[in-house]
């Protein structure tokens, strides 16, 4: 589900607070609103022109510029903006070398993958063998995994260049990057504001064009929310669509690696690159991965009211009292926009909607308390020496974890304690299924025909 609606009237230029040479680079391409056009055959429908990935590929193959030149341009912008943004925890030393390899292949007329020359940021809770992967935590400061995450491996196989590891709230726990053990990422649109989280670094990096696309992870909104804060496209795929192998686990039943891009097409191309079954992740789906990008049509080729017939429910409880009026008006604006595009939008009531958040919290805290028990200072990570084994665990974890992480582990430990499992974890599982039934019944029976 895409979190950022690129409103045609907003954000027509680059962030003002960054220095002027930065603002001269590539402007944001905004999807134009649908215009009336006579029906066209499939062969006439060109892909959207706002895709950086496709335009990079075109330029590289036509010799308009080289991968090295492109990489240099991005790296210069990255270095210029990084002191103000703090999106990255680590920047690769191999970018130009990898770009040169792409150029060599192109010169020899060899095949290059769809992500050739594309600079990709990777959230630091996704393992990369040749770069540190800290998860935003002191307990893994300096840690180098012995393998690449499957998502990273696939990006590299398709020619993508990992430009660096982006900042995040520690182990994905947070919504502002303020819970990172190392730094806070600023919002490129207003440096006094946060970039959101937990994938704040990945969102800011794409928003400020420090890289073309980036990978993040989303357990309870951690790709969608920072994408919205930084005005980029952020996509959380369905659980199981993308392999979690190499993604540092937070809540194993909820985690999903997601994509950031400056356009829907770019997010779709990246999603296609990383999706698919993985033998190293038993929870990864065996369902076929469609070619998302080939299904995108430029807005100029759409007939008017292209979403005619689509019925949309707007959950009343999400726009009730207590919601900021600015937020309410943006949501109503989006609903009107959908109506202009042909949807029938109906307000529906889902009174049990609010149970989702406490249920999520119980599940996420419980699973994280279990998942983070592997960080004990014994086989990897930073160790506080002690005379006795339990003290080694306790002190290494006390020193290595931030307060947010400790809180959630303690909460999860409580919810899973003997005698409490039924009241909390099991109940949260039931509520989760109950909510799914509620959603389905609203979709099937609650929307007018």
């Amino acid at each position, binding site marked *: 589900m895409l979190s950022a609606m690129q409103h045609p009237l907003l954000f027509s230029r680059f962030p003002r607070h960054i220095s002027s040479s930065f603002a001269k680079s590539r402007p944001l391409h905004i999807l134009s609103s649908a215009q009336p056009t006579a029906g066209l055959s499939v062969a006439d429908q060109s892909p959207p022109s706002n895709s950086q990935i496709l335009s990079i590929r075109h330029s590289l193959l036509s010799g308009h510029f080289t991968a090295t030149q492109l990489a240099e341009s991005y790296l210069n912008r990255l270095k210029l903006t990084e002191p103000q943004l703090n999106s990255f925890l680590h920047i690769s030393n191999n970018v130009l070398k990898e770009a040169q390899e792409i150029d060599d292949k192109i010169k020899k007329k060899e095949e290059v993958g769809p992500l050739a020359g594309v600079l990709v940021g990777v959230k630091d809770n996704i393992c990369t063998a040749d770069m540190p992967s800290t998860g935003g935590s002191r307990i893994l400061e300096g*840690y*180098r995994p*012995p393998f690449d995450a499957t998502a990273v491996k696939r990006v590299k196989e398709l020619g993508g260049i990992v430009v660096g590891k982006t900042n995040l*709230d520690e182990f994905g*726990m*947070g*919504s502002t990057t303020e819970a990172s053990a190392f730094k*806070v990422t*600023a919002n490129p649109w207003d440096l*006094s*504001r946060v970039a*959101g989280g937990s994938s704040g670094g990945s969102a800011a990096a794409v928003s400020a064009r420090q890289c073309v696309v980036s990978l993040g992870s989303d*357990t309870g*909104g951690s790709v969608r929310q920072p994408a919205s804060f930084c005005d980029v496209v952020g996509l959380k795929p*369905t*659980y199981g669509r993308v392999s979690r192998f190499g993604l540092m686990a937070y809540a194993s*039943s909820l985690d999903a690696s997601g994509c950031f891009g400056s356009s829907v097409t770019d997010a779709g191309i990246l999603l296609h690159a990383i999706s698919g079954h993985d033998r190293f992740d038993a929870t990864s789906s*065996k369902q076929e991965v469609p070619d998302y990008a080939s299904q995108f049509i430029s807005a100029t080729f759409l007939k008017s009211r292209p979403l005619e017939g689509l019925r949309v429910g707007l959950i009343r*409880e999400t726009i009730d*009292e*207590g*919601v*900021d009026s600015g*937020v309410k008006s943006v949501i109503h604006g989006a609903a009107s926009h959908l109506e202009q595009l042909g949807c029938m939008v109906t307000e529906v009531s889902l009174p049990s909607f*609010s*149970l989702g*958040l*406490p*249920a999520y*919290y119980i599940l*996420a805290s419980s699973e994280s308390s279990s998942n983070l*028990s592997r960080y004990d*200072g014994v*086989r990897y990570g930073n*160790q506080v*020496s*002690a005379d006795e*084994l*339990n*003290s080694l*665990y*306790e*002190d290494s*974890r006390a020193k290595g974890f931030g307060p947010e992480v400790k*809180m*959630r582990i*303690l*909460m999860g*430990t*409580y919810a899973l304690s003997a005698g409490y499992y039924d*009241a*909390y974890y*099991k*109940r949260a599982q*039931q*509520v*989760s*299924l*109950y*909510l799914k039934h509620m959603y389905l019944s609203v979709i099937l029976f609650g929307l007018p025909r």
Partner: protein
Amino acid sequence: MASRTSLMLRGLSPYYCCCCFFNLSSRSSSSSSKLFFLGKNSNPTIRYCSTKATGGASSLPPPDVTHLAKTARISLAPNEVEEFAPKIQQVIDWFGQLQVVDLDSVEPAIRAESLHENAREDIPETFENREAIRTSVPSYDDPYIKVPKVLNKE
């Protein structure tokens, strides 16, 4: 991760914004909870909202943070225990909402979605990059990973 939710007030039902619990620069509250809007600097705007815990959670004993910390193998200083305890209590009261829903007819799903059989063949494979694993071990004495002795407490 904490999703950025809206605070909804409806009568006695306690709806908390998740920002509320997990900002440890807050002072602990008694009966009212504070909603923090987290800007980049920690000068939060505090909006007070009335909350009352409902639901059956109060029938379970309050969390013993010291015991939880031992179970989770995290050493906590006494001031940390004092700081965490009310926050944890607040969240647990908030969890109480789930107690009032009638769920007798609902099976607890492992996941809300269903998944097919997905295990790979049970054939051992050698991991190639063992050297990287070895170099990551903080205290290594080939071929042993060294740890201090275990003290029997019981």
